[in-house]
């Protein structure tokens, strides 16, 4: 996204008036000093420029406020690919050495999950700002230690939860939080695929190295790779952390050469009894992925960018009127025309959340926000906490399925956030 596109985007999101966007997505305050940071650079080192790392680099190199000064990987083909994107980057094979590099202000960690913990801890110890791909760590204990470390570090900490910057999700949350849809009655998140999730193993590499997400020691499979994105939508919408979780996981279809489940289902229960379901089967893709937010007056499907009202929907022009008045605008209303008849509204095909298809899923904005934060050295509110609970809830769900028990959110891993607020 160019600067102009971004300005337009922020304008569309209501950033110009400030209030609504920042109430729903306070982390957008990362952009509040974007004029002052022109000319400054965030010097970033990439640890683990594999598939995701390279994708993120492709956005970073487009940002004039970023310089990719170093890359580190153990796998030569990854280094070769990374240098194609950032030819001037210094190459390391030992991440500790990269952390010793004084030219590096911040690191972006995109290694396999089991490696995140020590890399993030060491990065904070080395005085670096950290962007860690989701999930934060392999265990709840590690994740908690990372959060505590970040809190004591005075450094910036971002997690790769790009939906936080996705225009569809932001608009959906604005509408949910404003009460347009009534009370949230349930959240049904699912991510279905029909493939074995395997990557081809090139000569000279091992299966564990390339397909680490299929091995129990390196990943918690569906939960840490997929669920964490969707569970975060639940906490964002509800503005609450669920109290407990139950579920079941199994290996049912892709049984060969994998240790992690290909079929999981969890129920997260909030304090008021509202439930968030997460389901994933990797042998049917018909319903794809979605986070359906079911409310007393309507339903939101942010991934499809749609919403539906249970009864006749409010007229968009009247909703606009409410917003206009909030912003002290004397706007004109667009709805006059020939007669509205209910038969044209009988099939509830819903409405689009945005006027046009967004160009980005939030990843580029998330990275731009990180660069801004690194330059200003200011952590935007709540972004680390949203990431924290996304990871913890995925891990807790995994544990509940493993133990085949209902598990309450452990007291020792609660942080000062939302309903876990320490008074």
């Amino acid at each position, binding site marked *: 996204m160019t600067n102009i596109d971004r300005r337009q985007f922020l304008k569309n999101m209501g950033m110009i008036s400030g209030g609504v966007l920042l109430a729903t997505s306070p982390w957008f305050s990362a952009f509040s000093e974007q004029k002052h940071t022109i000319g400054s650079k965030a010097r970033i080192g990439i640890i683990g420029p594999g598939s995701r790392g390279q994708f993120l680099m492709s956005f970073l190199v487009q940002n004039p406020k970023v310089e990719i000064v170093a890359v580190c990987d153990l796998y030569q083909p990854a280094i070769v690919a990374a240098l194609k994107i950032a030819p001037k980057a210094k190459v390391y094979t030992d991440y500790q050495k990269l952390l010793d590099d004084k030219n590096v202000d911040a690191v972006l960690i995109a290694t396999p999950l089991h490696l995140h913990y020590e890399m993030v801890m060491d990065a904070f110890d080395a005085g670096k700002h950290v962007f860690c791909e989701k999930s934060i760590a392999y265990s709840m204990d590690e994740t908690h230690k990372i959060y505590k470390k970040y809190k004591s570090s005075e450094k910036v900490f971002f997690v790769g939860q790009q939906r936080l910057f996705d225009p569809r999700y932001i608009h959906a949350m604005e509408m949910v939080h404003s009460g347009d849809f009534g009370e949230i009655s349930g959240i049904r998140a699912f991510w279905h695929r029909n493939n074995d999730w395997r990557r081809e193993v090139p000569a000279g590499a091992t299966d564990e190295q390339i397909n680490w997400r299929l091995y129990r020691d390196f990943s918690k499979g569906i939960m840490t790779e997929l669920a964490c994105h969707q569970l975060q939508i639940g906490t964002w919408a509800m503005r609450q952390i669920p109290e407990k979780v139950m579920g079941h996981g199994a290996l049912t279809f892709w049984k060969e050469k994998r240790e992690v489940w290909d079929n999981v289902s969890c129920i997260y229960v909030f304090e008021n009894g509202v439930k968030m379901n997460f389901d994933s089967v990797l042998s049917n893709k018909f319903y794809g992925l979605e986070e359906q937010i079911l409310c007393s007056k309507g339903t939101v499907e942010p991934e499809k960018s749609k919403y539906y009202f249970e009864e006749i929907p409010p007229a968009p022009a009247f909703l606009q009127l409410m917003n206009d*008045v909030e912003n002290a605008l004397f706007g004109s*209303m667009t709805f006059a025309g020939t007669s509205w008849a209910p038969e044209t509204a009988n099939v509830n095909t819903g409405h689009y959340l945005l006027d046009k298809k967004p160009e980005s899923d939030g990843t580029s904005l998330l990275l731009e926000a990180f660069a801004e934060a690194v330059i200003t050295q200011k952590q935007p509110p709540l972004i680390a906490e949203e990431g924290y609970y996304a990871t913890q809830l995925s891990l807790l769900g995994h544990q509940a399925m493993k133990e085949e028990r209902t598990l309450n959110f452990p007291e020792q891993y609660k942080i000062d956030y939302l309903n876990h607020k320490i008074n």
Partner: protein
Amino acid sequence: MQYQQRIFSDGLKLFYAWFEALHTRVDLAICSKIDQDGLVEFVKMLQIEIEKFELIGNRFDPKSEISHVNTNAYKSDVVLSNELFEILSDCQMYNHKTYGYFDIAINSTNHLKPKEEAYLLDSQKQTIRFSNSGILLDLSGFLKGYVLERLIKIAENECYANLLINLGNSSIFAKGNHPCGKGWKIQHPENNSDCVLLNECLTTSGNNGKTKWPIVNPTDRVAVTTKKSVSVVTKLPAVGEVLSKVAYLATENERDKIFEIFGARLVK
């Protein structure tokens, strides 16, 4: 009824309610300092009024008063309620004042002779009698405007000064002011220009190709086929209903004369 309310810093409240009625949608924005319960009660009063007129004037409901008239008024005099008597008197008056372009008997199967009245009203006895067999009275192109007029009266009686009422997007009445400006700005559907309404009604009639009941020209009984819509601004919503059809059918000359009589303006 569904509703939302926003309260702004200076204690001002903007209340928005919407529901389905008269085979269409109704939207109401009210700007006042009255609390939400009071506003809900007020909108309920309006709903009751609308329901009352639906029972009187919906010719597709066999139990409605107009259906009773349609089946019996050729055979004998039919006594009318005060409301229906007033509506049918008004329609007759509008028919005369618009050289016959506005005609609620247009869907009759029996063709009338020129100048022949479709129905005769007796104000003493408050009755109606059809002049011919095959007469069918259809209030679809009038009722919304008439009902809107009644709703405005209720709002005035209840001392609501600033509000916007939308009946199915085709009849919009704006009373008083938008919280941030004078009158209310409505975008004209055809050319996207703004039209400011202050104690006025914007009525749109037309043919979008999907309309179930097309506008029919009483002079030749041919349904209008051009796909366009016409909007008029009037003080009274019922007049808006009448004139939006006239604007479609009359010659330019006739139209200007009729509009002058009613002090109406065409939105271009």
